[in-house]
C-alpha cells in the first residue's frame, strides 16, 4: 500500500536564500520580482521583514522605505535589510538538490507539481519499519532537516494530496510564518475523520471555484463529500470530483519521481596515476568523444570547455578551451587541448581527468557540398585559425576591433575577444563611419604632446615639432570641435585639425581648449 510523506518548506525562497548565504540569517530579507508592468513587487519576505509591515505584493519601493534605517516602527530594533531578486530557477535547483539528499529516506522522491514548488513528496509505503515506524520516520526527517538548518512541516498520509494538505494544515495554520517549525503529523491509513477536516483549498482548484465553495459554506472536505456527486459535477465540472477522488485515494495517483538532468561533464579516474602524455591524451580523446555524443543528443556545440587534470596531492591543473564557433567535433577539441597540454608541466602523476562544457550554443549545421571544399570553406578555416591562436595565446589576446558610437576618438573603438563568446556569432550593428579620410586609422595612445607654432593664437597650426623633427604645415583642414564626455567627469574639449606637411605626411592634431596645449593624436597612412 502506498504511503506518502510530504515535506513542506514554508517560505522556501527565503529559506533557500539563507541556506545559500548563511550570513543573511539575521537580515530582514525581501525578495522581489518584476511584474508584467515592469514594476518591482515584493514576492516573499522573512519574518523580520514581516515584523516591519513588509507584505508580499507591495511595491518594492514601499518595502525599502519600511526597512530604511530610522524608518518606522521606531520602538522595534533596527534590522539589516537585504533585498534580492527572486530567483525561481535557483529555488528549483536547490529543491532538486534537497530531493537528492532525501533519497536517504526513500528511493522515490518527487517535487510537488506546481510552477514554483516548495514541497517534496516521498513514497514511504513499506519502509517505515526501517526507521521504527512512521512517527519515527517523520521525526527522523524533521531532525535531519533541522540539522541542515531547514524549517519543515512533515505529514504522512495515504495519498499525495492528503499528505500535501496535512503538511500545511495539520495545525490549522496556513501561514508558514507563524507556525511552529518542525511540526509533523502522521495520519493512520484509512483515517477519514482527519481527512474530512481538511479545508477545500487542499484540492488546489481554480480560485473562483474555491471562492464559490466558501460562499456556499462548504469549507471542509467532509462537507464537500456529503454533497451529491452528480450535482457537484454539474456545477463545478468533473475535475473537482477527480481532485476529490485523488485526495481520498479512489483514483490512484502515482508519485512521479524526480530525476536530475545530467550535467554536461565527463570524467575518468586512472587505475594507475600516470605522467605519460600519450596516455593522458588518449583518455582525453575518449572523454571528448563521450562528451560529443552527449552534445550531439542536445544538438549543442561547445563554446567554452574546462578540462581538469587532478594530480596526486596537488591543486588540479586546468585547461580552458575557448571556441569561435560552437563545435562538437572531438578531434578538433582534442587538437586544441593538445596545444595547451604541450605547454603544461605535470607536477605529479594525473589520477583523474574531468571535462565540463561551460558554455554551449546550438550547433551550426552546414550542408556538405558535392564538389570540393572550394572558397566557401574559408570562414570555417578562419575560425579554426582563430581557435588555434586563441587557445595557444590566450582568449584575451585574439581580438577584433569594433567601432563605438562615440565622439571622443580614443573611446570610439574597443577590442573584443573573438573566441568563447556566443555574442560574437552575431554581427553587431556598427555605427556609421565618418566620411573617408576624416579619421586616421592609426592613433597614438595616449596623444603625444607637441609644440606648435601658429599664426594666430587660436588659429590653425603653421608648424610643429614631433620627435625633434620639424614639420611645416602645407594644408590644413579644420577646426573640427569636439566637446563631449561631461558625464564621465571633466569634459574633453578639443579643436581638431587634419594637416598635410610639406613632406607629404598627413597628421591629426588637436588643441586642448582648456589650456591651449597641442597634441598629436593620429597619423593618416
Amino acid at each position: 500500500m502506498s504511503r506518502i510523506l510530504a515535506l513542506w518548506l514554508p517560505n522556501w525562497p527565503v529559506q533557500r536564500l539563507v541556506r545559500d548565504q548563511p550570513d543573511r540569517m539575521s537580515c530582514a530579507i525581501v525578495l522581489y520580482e518584476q511584474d508584467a508592468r515592469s514594476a518591482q513587487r515584493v514576492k516573499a519576505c522573512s519574518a523580520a521583514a514581516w515584523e516591519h509591515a513588509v507584505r508580499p505584493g507591495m511595491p518594492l519601493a514601499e518595502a525599502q522605505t519600511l526597512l530604511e534605517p530610522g524608518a518606522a516602527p521606531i520602538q522595534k530594533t533596527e534590522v539589516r535589510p537585504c533585498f534580492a531578486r527572486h530567483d525561481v530557477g535557483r529555488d528549483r535547483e536547490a529543491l532538486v538538490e534537497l530531493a537528492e539528499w532525501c533519497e536517504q529516506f526513500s528511493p522515490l522522491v518527487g517535487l510537488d507539481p506546481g510552477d514554483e514548488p516548495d514541497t517534496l513528496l516521498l513514497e514511504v509505503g513499506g519502509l517505515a519499519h526501517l526507521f521504527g515506524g512512521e512517527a519515527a520516520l517523520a521525526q527522523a526527517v524533521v531532525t535531519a532537516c533541522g540539522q541542515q538548518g531547514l524549517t519543515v512541516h512533515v505529514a504522512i498520509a495515504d495519498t499525495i494530496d492528503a499528505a500535501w494538505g496535512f503538511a500545511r494544515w495539520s495545525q490549522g495554520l496556513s501561514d508558514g510564518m507563524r507556525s511552529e517549525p518542525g511540526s509533523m503529523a502522521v495520519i493512520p491509513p484509512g483515517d477519514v475523520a482527519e481527512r474530512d477536516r481538511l479545508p477545500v483549498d487542499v484540492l488546489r482548484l481554480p480560485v473562483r471555484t474555491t471562492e464559490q465553495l466558501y460562499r456556499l459554506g462548504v469549507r471542509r472536505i467532509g462537507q464537500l463529500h456529503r454533497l451529491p456527486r452528480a450535482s457537484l459535477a454539474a456545477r463545478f465540472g468533473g475535475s473537482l470530483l477527480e481532485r476529490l477522488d485523488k485526495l481520498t485515494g479512489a483514483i490512484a495517483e502515482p508519485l512521479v519521481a524526480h530525476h536530475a538532468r545530467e550535467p554536461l561533464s565527463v570524467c575518468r579516474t586512472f587505475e594507475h596515476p600516470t605522467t605519460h602524455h600519450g596516455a593522458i591524451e588518449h583518455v582525453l580523446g575518449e572523454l571528448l568523444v563521450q562528451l560529443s555524443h552527449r552534445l550531439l543528443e542536445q544538438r549543442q556545440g561547445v563554446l567554452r570547455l574546462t578540462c581538469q587534470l587532478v594530480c596526486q596531492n596537488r591543486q588540479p591543473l586546468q585547461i580552458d578551451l575557448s571556441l569561435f564557433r560552437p563545435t562538437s567535433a572531438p578531434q578538433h577539441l582534442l587538437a586544441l587541448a593538445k596545444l595547451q597540454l604541450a605547454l603544461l608541466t605535470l607536477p605529479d602523476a594525473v589520477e583523474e581527468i574531468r571535462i565540463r562544457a561551460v558554455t554551449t550554443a546550438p550547433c551550426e549545421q552546414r550542408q556538405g557540398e558535392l564538389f570540393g571544399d572550394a572558397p566557401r570553406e574559408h570562414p570555417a578555416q578562419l575560425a579554426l585559425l582563430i581557435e588555434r591562436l586563441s587557445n595557444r595565446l590566450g582568449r584575451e589576446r585574439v581580438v577584433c576591433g569594433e567601432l563605438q558610437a562615440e565622439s571622443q576618438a580614443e573611446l570610439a573603438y574597443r577590442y573584443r575577444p573573438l573566441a568563447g563568446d556566443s555574442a560574437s556569432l552575431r554581427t553587431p550593428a556598427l555605427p556609421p563611419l565618418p566620411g573617408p579620410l576624416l579619421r586616421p586609422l592609426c592613433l597614438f595612445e595616449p596623444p603625444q604632446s607637441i609644440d606648435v607654432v601658429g599664426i594666430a593664437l587660436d588659429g590653425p597650426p603653421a608648424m610643429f615639432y614631433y620627435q625633434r623633427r620639424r614639420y611645416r604645415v602645407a594644408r590644413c583642414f579644420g577646426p573640427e570641435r569636439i566637446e563631449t564626455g561631461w558625464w564621465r567627469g571633466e569634459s574633453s574639449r578639443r579643436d581638431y585639425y587634419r594637416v598635410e606637411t610639406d613632406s607629404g605626411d598627413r597628421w591629426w592634431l588637436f588643441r586642448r581648449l582648456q589650456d591651449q596645449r597641442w597634441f598629436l593624436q593620429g597619423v593618416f597612412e
Partner: protein
Amino acid sequence: MYTELHCKTNFSFLQGASHPHELVQRAAELGYQALAVTDKNSLAGVVRAHAAAKDCGLKLIVGAEITPVDAPAVVLWAPDRAAYGRLCRLITRGRRQAAKGQCELTWQDIAEHAEGLLAGVLIGDGERVSERPNHVAQTALGRYRQIFPDRCYLIAEFQRGPDDQRRLEMLRHLAHASGVPLVAAGDVYYHIPARQPLQHVLTAIRHGVSVAQAGGLLFPNAQRHLKSPDELRERFARLPDALQRTREIAERCTFSLAELRYEYPQELAPPGLTPLEYLKRLTWQGAQQRYPDGVPDKVLQLLKHELQLIGELHYEAYFLTVWDLVQFARSREILCQGRGSAANSAVCYCLGITAVNPDRVELLFERFISKERDEAPDIDVDFEHQRREEVLQYLYQKYGRERAGLAAAVITYRTRSAIREVGKALGLSLDCIDRLAKNMDGYPQEAIELEQRCQEMGIDTTSEVGRRLVHLTKELIGFPRHLSQHVGGMIMTRGPLCELVPIENAAMADRTVVQWDKDDLEELGILKVDCLCLGMLTAIRKCFALIRQTTGRQLSLAGIPAGDTRVYDMICQADTMGVFQIESRAQMAMLPRLRPRCDYDLVIEVAIVRPGPIQGQMVHPYLRRRAGEEAVTYPNDAIRRVLERTLGVPIFQEQVMKLAVVAAGFTPGEADQLRRAMGAWRRNGHMETFHQKLLDGMRQRGLSEEFAERVFQQIRGFGEYGFPESHAASFALLVYVSAYLKHYYPAAFTAALINSQPMGFYAPAQLVCDARRHGVEVRPADVNYSQWDCTLEGERILRLGFRLLRGLAAKDAAAIIRARAAGPFDTIDQFTRRTGLLQGAVSRLAEADAFGSLACDRRQSLWDALSQPKSRSPRPLLDPSDPAVDPLADLPAMTVQEQVVADYQTLGLTLRPHPVSFYREHLQRLGATPAAQLANLPHRRQVRVAGLILLRQRPSTGNGITFATLEDETGTVNLVLYKSIWERFHAIARHSNAWFVRGRLESRHGVIHVVAQHLQDMQHELTHRVPSRDFQ
C-alpha cells in the same frame, strides 16, 4: 546686424534645451536684429517668445521647421498674416493626419500651402559630404525652388563639424547650380553653450537610453547656441552674402503675432439683427420669464447698465456664444450652470446661464468686466459630468473642426518626473531613481530643498554625479514635456481657427486641440469658453427627475425656495454628507463654527476652507470676528469698502487684487499681473518684485509695515489655490440646492448620488447609511424589482439598482429588465430560461442575494445558479454531468455575520447590521466608546474608539498630519494622526482597515476629533475585506 533664422525652443519637445524667453533675451543681449523661432512642426512656443520679445524690444519672426517624409526638411517663415495662416493650416494638416504628438507631411502638402511663405531649405545636414553636390540634393532643391520661386533660400550652417570647408564648397556649388541664394543660420538648440549637457540629457530621454549609451545620437560639440556677431562674422567669413541675407529675410518678415485679431462667431444672431440687438432682445425676454411679476427696479437698473457696458466693449457675441451653448444643453436636458467673472451678472441670469439671482446676491458686474482693463470676460460653464462630451461634440459640429478646438495644457516637468528622467539619463540604478522620485513632489519651494531631499535619500550632492543630478534636474524642472488638453476651454472663431493657430489631435478620440495653452491665448486676447464638468450637476438633474416621478413636483436650480431656515439648520449641524462642496471633513468641521445662515455665508464657507486662506492664516481671524471676539477695524475707508463684506479679512482673489489697487496704488493692469504671478510664483519667483512694490505702495499711503507684510503673506498664501468670489457664488448656489434636496428629499437625493457615481467624497455604503439615519427605507437589489439605477418605490423608499452589484454587466441587467416585462420570476431555472443569462452572471446575482423575492436564501440560490448553463451552445443530449434529478443539497445556513461579509464583498455595502455591531459587547469590555456617544463626553477626555476605516487623507497643508475617518454602527469618528504616531504605527495605519484607537477627545464648538495616541490592529476581528478609500 544678424538675425538667427533657425532656432528651436524647448517646445520642440526633448530637443530644444532653452525656454523661449531665454532665447529671446539672449538674442537681445547679443544685439540681434531679430530672432526666428522655428520649432519642429509646431508653433507651440511662439506666443511665449512673442511675449518675451515684446518686453525686450526684439523683433520676432514666426516660423517652423517642417519635416516632410519625402523631401529634405525646410524652415518656413511667415512674412505676413496671410502666409502665417497658411503655415498654421499646413501644420494642422500634418498634425491631424498623424497620431497625437506626431506630424506627417509630404512635399505636396507644402506645395499647396507655399504661397507667401519664405523657405529655407536644409540640405546635407548631418549627411556625408562630398565636394560635388549629389544629384538628389539638387533635384530636391529644384523642387522647392519651383514652389517658392523668389522666396527660396538654401540654409548654410556650420557647427565646426568634421568637414566644414568641404560642406561650404558643396553648398556653394548647389546654390549656384540651382540659382537659390545661400543664407546663414545657426541651427540653435539652446541659448548658451552651458546648456549642452541638458540638451544631451534631453536627447537621451527622447531615445530612452542613458547619455553614456547615446553615443552617436548626441551632438559632438556645444556649438548649437546663439553666437556673438564677431563669432558669426568669422564663421561666415567666406560667405559674407549669406550673412547679409539674414537681414533681407528679417526685413521681408513684417508679421507679428500682435496682428492676430480674434473675432467671435457671428452667425448666432438671426438675419436682420445685429448681435447686440439680438442679445438685448433675448435678455429682456429672459427677464420677463425670470420675473413674471415684473422685473424689480434694482435688476432693471443692473440690466441697463450691464447691456450698455457689453455694447461698449463689444462682448455681445461672447455672451451669445455662451447662451447658445446653454440653450443646447437645455434642449438636451443637460443641467448646467455658469460661473466666473461675468457669469453672475443680471444679463447671465436672464439668459439662463446662471441661477444666481442678482436680486439676492450683492455682486457688482463692474468688478468682473472693467472698461479700463480691457480684459476679456470670463464665463465658465459647468455641465453634468456624464454628458459634457455631448456639449463639446455639439460645438465641434456647429462650428466645424476648422473653427473650434480645445485649448492645450502644457504638461511640464515637475520635480518628481524631472529627477526620474535625469537619473535615468545619468545611468543611476532604477531602484535608486524610484526611491528618489517617490520622495519628491511638486515644485520644491527653494532650490536648496532639492539638494536636501537628495541628501536625505543618501545621494552625496557634493560628488560629481550628485552635483550633475541636482543641477540638471533644476534646469529640467518647468520644461514642457508634451501638450495635453485643457479641462474644457473651447475656442471658437468666426474665420477658420486653423489659420489662427495649428490644431492637432488629442489622445482622446474625436477631440482636437490647438497648440496654445490658456496663458498663450490670454496673451493674444483670444477668448475661450470653459466647458467643465461637475458631478453634482448630474446628481441634481437625476434628483429633480426622481422627485418629479414620485411627487410630481417640478424643480429647477432657480426655482428652489431661497433662505429655508430648516436647510440652514441642517447645514449648521454639519449634517451634510453628500452635499456639494461642504461634505469634506474640513468643511464639516467648519460649519458648526461658521454657522451659515444666508446665501453669502455659503459663498464664504465655500471659499474659506481652501489651502489658500488656510495657509494665509485668514480662517481664524475671520471666525473670531464673526463670533464678535475681535473688533473689526480698517486702516482707511477705501480698504473698508473692499473688505467690509468679509469682516476685514481678504478671502477672495478679487479682494486681493482690489486691495493691491486701493492700498498699494497698483494699476488694474498690474493687479492682473499680480493675479497671474500668484498662480505661478512657486515656479518663477516673480512674486518678489511685487512684494517690494506692494510694500512701497502701502508705505506711501501711510499704512503700517506690519499691515503691509500681513497682506503680502495673505496674497502669497493664495498661491495656486486662490478662489474667486464669482466662482464661489455659483458654487454656493449648488451647495444650497443640494442641501435643500438632501433635507426634503433624502431618498431621491441618495439615489441620485449613487446613480452619478463616481463622484463626491463618499462611497455608496456611507450614503446609504446616512439616508437610513434620515428615515429612508432602503430595499436590497432584487431581480424582480431593481432597475440598473437606484429607484424610488415611494417618497422615502429607495430600491438599490443593479449598478451596485459588482461584476454585473449593464447588458445583463438590461436583459433582466426586458424579460421581467412579461411578469415576475418564480424560480432560478425559469429566470435563466427567460433572460438567457449564463451561469457566471446568475451566480453573481445569487452571491449578491438578488434572488431574495424568489424566497431563496443566498446559498441555496447560489447552488441553483451554479447549475445553470455555462455557455450558449446547446447541451449535448446525453451529458453525463447533467443529472436528470438534482437532489437537494444540504448546505449550512448562513449566520448574519456571514451575510454581512457577503454583502460587502458583492455590493460594497450592507443593509443588515453594521459589522462592528457584532463586536459591541467585546469592544465594550475593551472600553471603547461608540461614535455617537463621543459628543456627550468632555473635551480632552481620554477615549477609546474602534471601527472600520473609511478614508485616510493627508492634505498638503497639514504638516504631515493624516486625517482618518473611522466608522462604527452608530456613526463616524474623525481621527487626527500626527506624523510621529503615523510612523510609529505605520504598518497598521497604512494597511489595516479596522483600528482600535486610544486617544484624546477634542470637542469644541460641536466639532469632535480624536487625536490618536495608540493604534491597534483589529482587521482580523472586525473585517473581511471591507474596502476603504485612501488618500484621495
